[in-house]
């Protein structure tokens, strides 16, 4: 694994990253990835207080990493600099700590979900959250589901199950499903769709013990608890991988974190981290690999739908192409238009923050225009926060591609 800091040596100062950087295109508050990353890094010392606060305006979308001709890990340099910045300011701010703890919020709110939703989604409390915490009152916040994915799964029996009509025998492929916080607390239907599609294809699916992947903490500069989460996950997941399971997730952020992001940001080069990383897949990536191996049931029913699909930044950071686009293309009748836009602007929790909400909305403008102009009735995106942002900005319903696949299989979600 490459030493993040050492990659700054590869920078040839060409500023291609700055020219593609979504926040730099819309705000002067962020001086750009080259500036904040490999350039500023030469002026940072572990012995001195952080000299620059503007690096906090990096939204972590990683477009810079993607276009960089030299392989500099710019976004990771920035994420680490943000963590140092907070450390030097006497700790991670309350808001950032809160936004990093999606899981804790989920755990607290779940038993009283309707009340929590009411509390969270009324004008007075949003006003209070803005004034007290700096969370923009307009920003898209999710709603807690009445029942978590884990609860649903455990009611179902808590074990892998063979789907009726599955073409392949159970046991041929074994998957441990990483639902993450979003599919557990907010969108259990995404998890159910993934399970249904995998089982339909004869995959044995278990749901291992797991905690938050830690990405919200990492991107909010809160590294210590993120390290604890990652270690806990490794403890749960490494034995599962050793037992022959692949880790498959529906959140491109969680899977990216398990694959590489946590290892790079936290500098974890343990064997367990390598093992889990190498066996983690995004759900569409996994299904596409099955398809290439001739193992995917392509008996889809036609879906007469026009979909505006946005491959999220987190997916691009996987560097696996756009498997969802290829999968959806197999569904008869489904017309998929792929956005060429860089970023929706939410970047996890970035666009929720009061001073960054407008930046996020401006960053997402080209995408929102694309969705609105596409004439699509439905949008699709692999990342939850992006889905919420797209719906927030356009009013168009946004699904995970796995939900479309499930529908095309005729796997109606009996569980609202």
């Amino acid at each position, binding site marked *: 694994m490459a030493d993040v800091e050492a990659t700054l040596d590869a920078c040839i100062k060409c500023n291609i990253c700055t020219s593609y950087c979504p926040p730099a295109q819309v705000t002067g508050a962020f001086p750009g990835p080259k500036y904040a990353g490999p350039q500023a890094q030469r*002026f940072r010392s572990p012995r001195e207080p952080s*000299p620059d606060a503007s690096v906090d305006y990096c939204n972590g979308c990683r477009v810079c990493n993607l276009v960089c001709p030299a392989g500099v890990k710019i976004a990771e340099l920035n994420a680490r600099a943000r963590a140092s910045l907070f450390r030097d300011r006497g700790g991670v701010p309350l808001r950032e700590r809160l936004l990093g703890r999606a899981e804790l919020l989920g755990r607290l709110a779940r038993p009283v979900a309707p009340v929590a939703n009411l509390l969270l989604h009324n004008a007075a409390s949003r006003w209070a959250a803005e004034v007290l915490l700096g969370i923009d009152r307009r920003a898209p916040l999710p709603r807690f589901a009445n029942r978590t994915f884990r609860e649903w799964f455990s009611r179902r029996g808590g074990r892998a199950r063979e789907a009726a009509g599955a073409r392949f025998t159970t046991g041929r492929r074994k998957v441990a499903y990483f639902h993450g916080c979003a599919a557990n607390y907010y969108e259990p239907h995404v998890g159910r769709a993934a399970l249904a599609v995998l089982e339909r294809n004869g995959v044995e699916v278990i749901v291992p013990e797991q905690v938050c992947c830690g990405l919200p903490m990492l991107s909010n500069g809160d590294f210590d608890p993120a390290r604890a989460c990652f270690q806990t996950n490794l403890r749960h997941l490494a034995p599962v991988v050793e037992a022959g399971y692949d880790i498959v997730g529906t959140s491109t952020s969680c899977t990216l974190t398990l694959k590489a992001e946590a290892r790079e940001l936290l500098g974890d080069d343990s064997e367990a981290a390598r093992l889990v990383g190498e066996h983690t897949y995004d759900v569409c990536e996994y299904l596409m690999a099955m398809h290439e191996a001739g193992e995917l049931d392509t008996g889809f029913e036609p879906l007469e739908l026009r979909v505006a699909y946005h491959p999220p930044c987190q997916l691009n950071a996987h560097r696996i192409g756009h498997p969802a686009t290829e999968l959806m293309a197999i569904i008869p009748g489904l017309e998929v238009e792929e956005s060429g836009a860089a970023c929706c602007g939410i970047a996890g929790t970035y666009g929720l923050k009061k001073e960054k909400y407008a930046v996020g909305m401006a960053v997402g403008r080209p995408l929102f225009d694309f969705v609105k102009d596409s004439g699509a009735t439905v949008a699709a995106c692999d990342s939850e926060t992006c889905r919420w942002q797209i719906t927030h900005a356009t009013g168009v319903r946004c699904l995970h591609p796995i939900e479309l696949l499930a529908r095309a299989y005729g796997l109606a979600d009996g569980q609202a």
Partner: protein
Amino acid sequence: MRRISADVLVIGGGATGTGVARDAAMRGLWTVLLERRDLNHGTTGRNHGLLHSGGRYAVKDPVSARECIEENRILRRIMPHCIEDTGGLFVVTSSDDPAYGDRFKAACDACGIPCEEITPAGALRREPRLDPRLRRAFSVPDGAADPFVATLATAESARAHGARIYRYHEVTRVVLRGGRVSGVVARDLVNDEEVLVEAAITVNAAGAWAGRIAALAGCEVKIVPAKGVMVALNHRLVNTVVNRCKPPGDGDILVPVGQVCVIGTTSYEVPDPENYGIEAWEVALLLDEGEKLVPGFKAARALRAWAGVRPLYSGEATAGGATREVSRTFTLLDHETRDGVAGLLTITGGKWTTFRQMAQVTVDAVCQKLGVARPCRTHLEPLPGSERRDYHRVGAPLRAVEGGRQAELVCECELVTRDQVETAIDAGAVTLDDVRRSTRLGMGPCQAGFCGYRAAGLLHERRQPAVQEANLALRDFLQERWKGLLPVLWGRQLRQARLDELIYLGIMNAERLDTGGRKSPLTDFYLQQAESSAHGVEQPLTGGGGQERHG
């Protein structure tokens, strides 16, 4: 001929010369300084950036060691802004003799150098990139210094006390009148005219060139020009000065200075302080030695290499270029008692850390000769720029441009703003390299790839010279950077150089800009230095690729 007169004439605009000028001016002497190029152009501007604690010399050269620790304390007081308080470590690596540590510690104690042994684990906590196999570590008060800023601040102080400093004035003749040096004739290289400078006392502080100045007065001063090669890496791999705890040798000190870290040095006698190359084996040796301190060192990006020529003074000739055997202490020569030539003093030897003491001793002698009884005060009065009484910090330039000033950057790598460049131009920079010395323009990874054009544009804008002069300034500057790049061009730095070629050749066609056959005082110097360092490719090649091989 233009005439200038003074009590004291100082020849040489490095640390020592400006130090002498300041001291003399502060004691009320009417002082003139002549430098044949820019301040800092010589050895001071080609140095390691190391504020010695004296530890390096404690075992073999205790006189030097004591001078160092004394001056170390004074410089921290009078010019904290030129110093980064990195501290220093002496580490016994797995390839060094652990017993040397005991000798080292005892010698430091004897010289009064605060030295404390710390555990290997403690050393690794402080510098995590060090080779974990290190056996012992000692902490000393080394520091990182910015000799460029220090000299400029010293010169500014000298001027404030009435000294007149003339750059690009090359001494061509020493005027002897009745066995006494009464002044010099110098050539003003910019205006191409002769100047006569008359002074009661002339101080030869020409560093590695001091022998030549003395020769103009008919005196023989045997200076051993000892070339020391250094290589800067693109970013700091350590934040403490790291020395090998062993008898002094090549490549045994790694200094984090500014945004880079510098490994150095070598020490070899060269015949001519003006004309020397940086050999490929020297660079390879330094990188190998760096690897012993910091694993992965050789894989890091080397930015640039340079060499300084130490003015080592030896009463008699040394055998076989063994320049490490010559003491690093300094010597003041009174040519009246030594050679029967009155009115001339030569101050030589020493090192950057002791420049102030060298100046003090020199001006004490000057005062004695002039019958002036004013004590030295250079150790008491802080230098301009040190008002905040705080050490320099790595992050300071970044902090200074936070909050919107990023758009004013001319040199993005080193965060040099337009204001700074314009100030340097207005202060009479003759070349863009002069601007570099006072601002750090072009000293970062891209080595003027982007800022060279901007600086040439600004130079043209501010001065409105014949455009050929701006073109020449640009070409000179790029060639000046090139000479230091040549020894380390491979991998990422060669890729950078190719981007710089895309800019200047591919986009600008700058190789065809008209310079009207002009040359600056340094055009030939830049080319000649590059020629000394480039070993192959002499024959012009057209079309083909020369000797080729397949791999």
